[in-house]
């Protein structure tokens, strides 16, 4: 693996007196596909715009390819950006849109032509070159926006929620296309989204952001399997992880979690917390199953979503709502009384106050 290509060091951003990014530290390897993901207002787009040079850097630094870019103008940073709105020039044809940055850089005509043809070939834009953006569909505009980034032959691609304006089917198609393009070109990419499915499916490295901080970064499945905080646990995965607050207790020799209403969840044997400690018990919906009557926790089904490839169930369990995902087509209906069996070996435990992950022996 080569040295890190993009680095953020103690990066801060303030708008007036309000600090929105609080000391971001991150290293991105060359050729990596990094996804910044988080809820609205977490600072991910601001971070991307700071890399692009569209926002100033309050303190700290960003380096790209070993060069600190804080004071380098946007056009000289060797980056290209795809905007959520596509930001195509509406009065120019697709060809003129692609050519604009090359004209500004005073690239020779023959080189320009070759680059446009290459980008158009990669993105299947040849039949669209003489059209205006208004004559294109959403997906086509998206590809033109990518083409405009591609012709600049940047060292770093930036994507700002590029799929948000597309319908669900097209979004999946473009997701695959962007990922395939990255595998082919191997260009370092930083991609911002609020969609955790995009983050999970596209990234080599997922960076989960919350409230101007990085909550956790790592390969997608690492984050899914070992979320470092309750926020990451709840943010990644759909339906979201079950997070149930309770008090550690013992049932004979085995540790249990008292969640009220006389309900007790079995805890892993290696738990370090003493009885009386407040913790949050996290369990992914696919790690809850419906057992034979009386075998687990009593619950009442409130909603059944038959997606086809899997079934999502919602059940009232005392004062808590349990989410269950089953790969099978379960024969249950609204109002059914069922017995829920948690897979304790898959449980995640979090500190109820800090939200930090608790280790288990």
């Amino acid at each position: 693996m080569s040295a890190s290509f993009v680095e953020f060091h103690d990066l801060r951003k303030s708008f007036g007196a309000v600090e929105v990014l609080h000391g971001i530290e991150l290293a991105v390897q060359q050729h990596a596909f990094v996804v910044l993901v988080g809820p609205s207002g977490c600072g991910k787009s601001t971070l991307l715009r700071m890399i692009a040079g569209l926002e100033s850097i309050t303190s700290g630094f960003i380096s790209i390819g070993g060069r600190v870019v804080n004071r380098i103008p946007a056009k000289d940073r060797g980056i290209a950006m795809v905007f959520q709105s596509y930001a195509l020039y509406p009065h120019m044809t697709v060809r003129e849109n692609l050519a604009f940055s090359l004209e500004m850089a005073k690239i020779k005509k023959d080189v320009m032509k070759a680059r446009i043809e290459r980008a158009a070939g990669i993105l299947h834009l040849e039949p669209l070159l003489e059209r205006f953006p208004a004559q294109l569909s959403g997906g086509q505009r998206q590809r033109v926006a990518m083409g405009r980034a591609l012709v600049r032959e940047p060292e770093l691609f930036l994507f700002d929620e590029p799929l948000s304006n597309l319908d669900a089917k097209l979004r999946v198609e473009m997701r695959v296309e962007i990922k395939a393009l990255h595998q082919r070109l191997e260009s370092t990419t930083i991609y911002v989204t609020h969609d955790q499915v995009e983050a999970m499916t596209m990234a080599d490295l997922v960076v989960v952001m919350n409230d101007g901080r990085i909550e956790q970064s790592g390969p997608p499945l690492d984050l899914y399997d070992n979320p470092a905080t309750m926020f990451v646990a709840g943010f990644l995965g759909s339906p979201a992880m079950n997070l149930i607050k309770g008090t550690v207790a013992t049932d004979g020799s085995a540790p249990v979690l008292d969640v009220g209403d006389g309900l007790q969840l079995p805890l892993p044997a290696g738990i370090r917390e003493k009885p009386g400690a407040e913790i949050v018990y996290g369990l992914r919906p696919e790690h809850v199953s419906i057992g034979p009557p009386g075998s687990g926790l009593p619950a009442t089904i409130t909603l059944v979503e038959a997606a086809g490839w899997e079934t999502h169930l919602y059940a009232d369990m005392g004062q808590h709502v349990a989410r269950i995902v089953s790969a099978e087509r379960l024969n249950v209906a609204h109002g059914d009384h069922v017995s829920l069996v948690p897979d304790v070996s898959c449980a995640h435990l979090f500190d109820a106050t800090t939200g930090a992950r608790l280790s288990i022996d």
Partner: protein
Amino acid sequence: MSTTRHDLDVLTAGERASEFVKLLAPYILVIPGLAFVLGVLGYAVVGGVGLSLNETDMFLNQTFVGLKNYVSIFEDPRFQSSLWKTIVFVVSSIALGIVMSMVFALTLYHVGFGRRFFRGLSLVPYFVSGIAAAVMFRFIFTTSGGFVNYILESFGLPAPSWLGDPILAFIVAVLANCWFMVPFATLILLGGLQTIDRDIYEAAKLDGATGLKTFFRITLPLIKPMMGVSLIWVSYISFSTFDIILALTAGGPLRATELISVYMYEIAFLQLDFGQGSVLMVVLLTFNTVLSLVYLKFFVLNDRRYKTAT
């Protein structure tokens, strides 16, 4: 209960009538406005053209004379001279007016503090009547005691007779005209600027476009339709301006600012020759219409964004 499937499928006569009214509503609502505009404008235009083909005496008796009024007007050296002055006046007003409007619109677009205040303030000249504007300009440019000459003199510079010199008076007239018409043109252009997605500017910045390049390659083409509407406005106002000139110079000195509109007033209302006065109205109307069509064609209809399938 005897509701059958058939009953639910078919609209009743009442429902059909209400659907029909819904369809017609937009047209019905437009009729009063359209009738008013056509009535007022149409009557004036048709009446004016009628007058231009007749000789009307002081008792308003009309005699049809065909194109006689046109021939005598076009042969009139005073008309020819006022036509040239009008063309120079309009061209310089458009050039100066559009540049000023663009500069003001860009300034108002970018101004960060007191945005609403400045935008409101910039419209004030438009609400001042032409006569009042002209009186104000007379005060500013009066030879002795005028503001401009006071400034010039305090720097030890010569104080010219602004409204007494034919060329200077013409320049002052153009300035006063611009002062009056620029605010509205600014408003139109500002509206145009605000329709441009800010992402497009950011994309242009990343693409390496400088400020001037961005203006000429992105901003200007994107506000082309509004530019067309502004041009229609400034040329219309400049061709038709009358009150400002009358109150500022009354066409003088030495007829230096006698534009067609001023000459028309003289012929129609001082010499009471309604026939020849109407000819001048037709001339102004023709200029305004042709120019407006040209602007519409090249600025509004030719907008590349709205081109349909190639």
